């Protein structure tokens, strides 16, 4: 298949205007010795029907989607209303770039503005950027932002922050003179207050914790916020399951200075991990250090309301090495889908969805922990994920479930060797009671 639009006659006329005989002459400005003297070793071109068949064959090698599975751990299955797919597929949304020319980009710009408003409403922050790559990168950017704001070298990070977020933060800070220390997790599944108190000192730039945390447990944000601020440290809250914000109090209400996280739950499929949607909001006094694109409202020469990208003196194309971040292309189309998702669910729909997550996961946790040989590992209240402890290796439990055609939860052994017998289960609103009962039945058989 070729996507070229020139006929042979067109090419002839164009070469004639340029004043050359062949396209090859245009490459006269390349040294001969570096030119490739052979065809690329790639498969021969496919027509569209062949291409479709080829990908259906590749897709058939993935069997996961046909199974009942209880994986969450930062990536969640929520229902996506049809309007989101129908509207986001429009070429007007899919095929422009960053709205550098606002007069022909009001659609994209207004949607970013609405997205920023929604993020602020959900997080309780004053301002939001237009998106970041994913939750892990958003957490890393939040850490760097805190360091720029107060110039202190130490960041306290909850051990219950998503393990891949912690790894990403480590990669980002490695060469920048920032260090992290982990705060331990207590029996309830939240971080240990006394451990945080012991580790807070005058060098602490920020305290970063996730809520609901990696184990699904809702953290006591008020207590930790006060502790952080008592030591002149910033308080950063990461939210990896953004659907929780539909019913849980906004982190801003507890004094968070920066809220960052992952909004894949808002209208994006699991997608084997990407593209997802990093988000970040902060208090308005930190505006100048916020990374990423920001849309703002203004007026045109006739006094009509319009939107533009603004405050770009923070950004790499103006400030180069002094920019707040190197980010350029972000996740705009994912943010657009999130905007469509949130506006379609609306105030009541989002809350109802969030509450159903709590109800269904609560039912599942009670049902499963009632089985002999299974108990809940943490006592704290949770949103839609919970940790079950078995009498043997969690991976073995998952293997046994596979023989029943079920993919269990995430075995925690790899990320938390101390939780080797534990498995993290996720139940959202898309699971039926029958499916939960099927899992319970399978576990009963496996443990018999």
């Amino acid at each position, binding site marked *: 298949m070729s*996507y070229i*639009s020139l*006929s042979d006659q067109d090419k002839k006329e164009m070469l004639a205007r340029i004043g050359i005989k062949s396209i090859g002459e245009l490459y006269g*400005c390349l*040294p001969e010795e570096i030119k*490739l003297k052979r*065809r690329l070793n790639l498969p021969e071109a496919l027509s569209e029907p062949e*291409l479709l068949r080829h990908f259906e064959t590749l*897709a058939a090698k*993935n*069997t*996961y989607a046909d199974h009942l599975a209880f994986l969450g751990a930062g990536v969640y299955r929520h229902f996506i*209303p049809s309007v989101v797919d129908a509207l986001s597929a429009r070429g*007007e949304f899919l*095929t*422009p770039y960053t709205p*550098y020319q*606002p*007069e*022909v980009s009001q*659609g994209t710009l*207004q*949607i970013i503005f*609405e997205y920023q*408003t929604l993020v602020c409403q959900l997080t309780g922050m004053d301002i939001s950027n237009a998106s970041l790559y994913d939750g892990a*990168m958003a957490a890393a950017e939040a850490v760097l932002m805190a360091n720029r704001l107060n110039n202190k070298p130490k960041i306290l990070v909850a051990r219950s922050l998503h393990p891949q977020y912690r790894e*990403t933060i480590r*990669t*980002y800070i490695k060469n920048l003179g920032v260090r992290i220390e982990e705060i331990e997790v207590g029996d309830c599944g939240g971080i240990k207050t006394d451990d945080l108190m012991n580790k807070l000192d005058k060098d602490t730039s920020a305290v970063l914790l996730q809520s609901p945390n990696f184990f699904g447990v*809702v953290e006591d944000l*008020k207590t930790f916020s006060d502790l952080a601020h008592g030591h002149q440290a910033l308080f950063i809250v990461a939210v990896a399951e953004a659907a929780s914000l539909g019913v849980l*109090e906004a982190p801003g209400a507890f004094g968070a200075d920066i809220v960052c996280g992952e909004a894949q739950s808002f209208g994006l499929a*699991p*997608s*084997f991990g*990407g*593209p*997802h949607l990093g988000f970040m909001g902060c208090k308005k006094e930190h505006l100048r250090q916020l990374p990423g*694109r920001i849309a703002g409202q203004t*007026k*045109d020469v006739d006094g009509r309301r319009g939107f533009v990208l*603004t405050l770009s003196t923070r950004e*790499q*194309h103006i400030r*180069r090495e002094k920019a707040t971040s190197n980010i*350029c*292309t972000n*996740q705009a*189309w*994912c943010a657009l889908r999130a905007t469509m998702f949130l506006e379609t*669910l*609306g*105030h*009541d729909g989002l809350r109802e969805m969030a*509450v159903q997550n709590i*109800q*269904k996961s*609560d*039912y599942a946790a009670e049902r499963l922990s009632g089985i002999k040989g299974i108990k809940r590992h943490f006592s704290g209240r949770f949103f839609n994920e919970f940790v079950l402890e078995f009498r043997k290796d969690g991976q073995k439990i998952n293997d046994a479930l596979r023989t029943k055609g079920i*993919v269990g939860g995430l075995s925690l052994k790899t990320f938390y060797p101390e939780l080797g017998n534990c498995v993290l289960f996720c139940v959202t609103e898309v699971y039926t009671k029958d499916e939960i009962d099927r899992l319970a039945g399978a576990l009963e058989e496996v443990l018999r």
Partner: protein
Amino acid sequence: MIRESLIFEISDKGKRAFALPKLDVPGKKDILRGLPVRDEIPGFPQVSEIEIVRHFTRLSQQNYCVDIGFYPLGSCTMKYNPKINEKVAALREFALSHPFAPEDMVQGNLEIIKLVEDYLCEISGLDAFTLQPSAGAQGELTGMMLIRASLEARGKARKYVLIPDSAHGTNPSSAHLCGYTVQEIKSNENGTVDLEDLAKRMNEDVAALMVTNPNTLGVFEYDIRKIAEIVHAKGGFLYMDGANMNALTGICRPGDMGVDVIHINLHKTFATPHGGGGPGSGPVGVIKALEPYLPIPRVEKRGGKWALNTNLPESIGRVRSFFGNFLVVVKALAYILALGPDGIKEIAEIAVLNANYIRKSLDKDYHLKYTTPTLHECVFSDKYQKEYGVSNLDIAKRLIDLGVHPPTMSFPLIVHGALMVEPTETESKRDLDMFIDAMKQIAREAKENPEVLKSAPHHSYVRRLDETAAARNPVLKWEKER
């Protein structure tokens, strides 16, 4: 023209566009007790389904895009994004796969990652690729981290990174994020790297030279091999920003030029849609010596099956969660397979033909600061029009009236009043001619009626917007009027 309201302004209490099934588990009345909940999210929208559909459909009509017309935004490669690519990426077996799924249940995904890595190696001439970086800038940062890790393993990370003054802003920003101090290299009269300046600056404190090739003027660095020699002689690395790879596919390979690290933008060269500013994908390719440092995880074959390896002690670690923007990678694979080896070469050839056709057609009407031959893009300036008080901004805004998206403006920084035009290979001659005619009309208007340019655009949803006011008094979200 009617402005579309903000969704918050048409919201009314109690309206709905979505309903969930009734709760089918025995729910608890007091389930929220003891949790930090809120009763209300003030201002959160409540609208009906048709209101949603009309809201976004109308907003879509206020966007210009590749599907509507010519979009010669220089350095962004706004080519046609084939529809079949969207269809295959949406297949449920890809879209619904969970990144923590057992490896044996996602063999198709892992195979795709490996295939794309291999094809990018073949196209670029590098030895190994990672598909993890989410976009070009994250690719740059990843690439610089690989260089740093390798230098550290050799004993010393070094202090400086050299970057030409024509470079994209992400280059210095990424180098800085990697802990390096940036030194700028001056361009010579051809717009390329000044070899003497480079030789003078290159020493054993310099970790790398970051070079874009062809550079942001569209000029190929003819001395790329000498450049590589100078950098390598002092133990440094040559990083190539592959944003302009669209000029070179199938013609020559960075790996054959002495490049050690490259990032490629799948959302440019490999036709994945730009989405209004992402998601992109910025794979990084490296020479063999740098492979051990690539971010985790790596896909490899183990016992006849695809598997993920996270146990790589020399790796720089994780640069994001999971495996990159996977569905973007799926689209890029569909594009590579649709085109095949000849089609991939044709990308570059026709992109270069189209750009030179525009350059030749307009070089009497618009000033070219550098007369060096160019490949896939060309950079005009507003120097001739300035005589009549008309700037590149006025030219850009007038183009909107004439039905095309303006070129990239005021970049690269070494061309004052720049208009950077990149037509890409997918445009028809008819559309190229329409652009050329529009530019010629504007050149005439600059002489005869400059006011029509200075007050442009006249036929857009909004006219020129006050960007200064937007920055001075930031209004960054909707708030309920008191």
